[in-house]
């Protein structure tokens, strides 16, 4: 996804004089040609995320649409108030593209983890969140939304699904029918679902975005089925968007997201998935147990 981000953004900067790129000293080598070709609109701002976000808002206030990039916790958590006030409250458009996701930087430890980003940003009115499961999905999301006039957050992952799914912004698309449960999976976790759950008698739905203000709807009759929500970050953001459907159908819900604890282990992304019981085998066991109760 990072390569796609670099090439797609390079095209946007090249083709649109009302665009700008701001890097928090991350991705500088990949963007070296763009930084060199467009020094008036492409900047390695440096390791000062608060100012980077406010500067981006200043650009947006004068009609230049910014694309801001660094590692997830440093933009979402360190500069949260700048995103809230300078973009959210001031109603300015901008694009925040993060890398690292929940624990892609497994070996680097908790300072570089950001499983809270989606829920945190969901608390800022109007922020649209994109959780692409595939680089092609991200490419479409960025191309279609960078100049949408909204605040957009794109959560890039090192791990992705084998194929892109054609799903619209805010859409929850049914991939498979089934009678015993409705499972909704977000972004790159579809890979684990396709590896371990397709033979179960469950509906499988997929989405790769959380809308800021629009409602979201699961295309399911529910009919007393249990609901499973499988998210690659702290649970909660998607359930909040569909809670009225869930309660109207009196569904029993199991959320399988990143647990709210500091992951004080290193190793690989896969090892962390297994440790958190979010890997293919673990989710199979959890889903089977849930639907058989």
């Amino acid at each position, binding site marked *: 996804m990072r390569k796609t981000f670099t090439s797609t953004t390079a095209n946007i900067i090249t083709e649109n004089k009302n665009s700008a790129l701001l890097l928090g000293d991350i991705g500088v080598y990949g963007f070296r040609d763009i930084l060199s070709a467009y020094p008036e609109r492409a900047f390695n701002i440096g390791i000062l995320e*608060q*100012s980077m976000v406010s500067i981006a*808002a*200043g650009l947006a206030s004068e009609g230049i649409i*910014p694309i801001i990039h660094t590692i997830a916790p440093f933009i979402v958590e360190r500069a949260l*108030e700048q995103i809230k*006030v300078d973009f959210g*409250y001031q109603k300015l458009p901008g694009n925040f593209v993060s890398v690292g996701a929940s624990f892609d930087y497994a070996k680097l430890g908790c300072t570089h983890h950001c499983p809270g980003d989606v829920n945190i940003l969901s608390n800022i009115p109007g922020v649209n969140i994109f959780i692409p499961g595939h680089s092609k999905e991200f490419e479409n999301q960025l191309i279609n939304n960078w100049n949408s006039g909204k605040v957009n957050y794109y959560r890039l992952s090192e791990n992705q699904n084998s194929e892109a799914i054609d799903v619209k912004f805010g859409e929850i698309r049914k991939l498979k029918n089934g009678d015993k449960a409705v499972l909704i999976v977000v972004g790159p976790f579809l890979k684990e679902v396709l590896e371990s759950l397709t033979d179960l008698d469950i509906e499988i739905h997929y989405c790769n975005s959380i809308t800021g203000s629009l409602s979201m709807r699961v295309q399911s009759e529910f009919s007393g089925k249990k609901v499973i929500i499988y998210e690659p970050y702290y649970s909660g953001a998607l359930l909040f968007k569909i809670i009225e459907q869930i309660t109207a159908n009196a569904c029993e819900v199991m959320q399988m997201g990143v647990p709210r604890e500091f992951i004080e282990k290193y190793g690989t992304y896969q090892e962390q998935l297994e440790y958190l019981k979010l890997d293919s085998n673990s989710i199979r066991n959890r889903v089977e147990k849930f639907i058989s109760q």
Partner: protein
Amino acid sequence: MKTRIYSMKHGPRSEKSIFLTYSNVPMNKNNVVDFQRLQALRVKILKACSHSNEGHIPSAFSILDILYSLYILLPKTSNINFTKNDIFVLSKGHAALALYAILEEAKIIGPEWVDTFGDFESNFGGHPDMNKIPGVKASTGSLGHGLPITLGKILAKRTQNIEFRAYCLIGDGELNEGSIWESLMLASHHSMKELTVIIDSNASGDRALNLGSLESKFDSLGFDTKNIDGHSHKDLVSNFANFHDNKPTAIIAQTIKGYGISEMENNPAWHHAVPTQEQLRTFLKDLI
């Protein structure tokens, strides 16, 4: 006539001692017509505060001469006019009452702010909202945001190949914020010659951190730094109109918090206080 030597009150900030500031006799340093206009603006600010039982009066009075010089006096002597290409951002948004008063004086907004300040449906709150008020370039209030926003505006304006100047007023207490120092470094790195940072040096910062010499700090960051009397229109206008060819400018404006009403001056009890009706009558009598 009351005379005060403010160097006595500002021990840690030796730069302050270069000015002998005389309270309640600003006509000594400024044109009498301008003095009378400013007294009228102070009256409006007091009435707005009294109307809403809200407001940071001393912070507004601290910067009133600065804004008057920038919006009213500077256009008379230069081509700088904030209704066109130039930018002013009030980073210390809690001094919004001064901005509202000056925007009315500059005929950018009407007089309604006085009678509606802080009302439920009002456009005029305790901090300025750029989506509600013409002439307000950033919705400030949380300190440390206005300066980097100004930098972003400068970068955007540069792409338009137009001549402009950008002024950003920050408080000396606001200098506690890390984002301010980030932005000062960035302004210098990007040779933002279009930028004038005005520091409202009213000793608010001394409550928490003694920053020592601001002049040497801004010098070392690569700014063309001026240390002036922030209540002298002549000094303010001449320094607003002059700037370095390739460096950002910093104007350390030595001011008095609550300037114009002796009871409020440098009195921390008044920072976010509103006068009683009796106090209001006394203050208005003094001002008119």
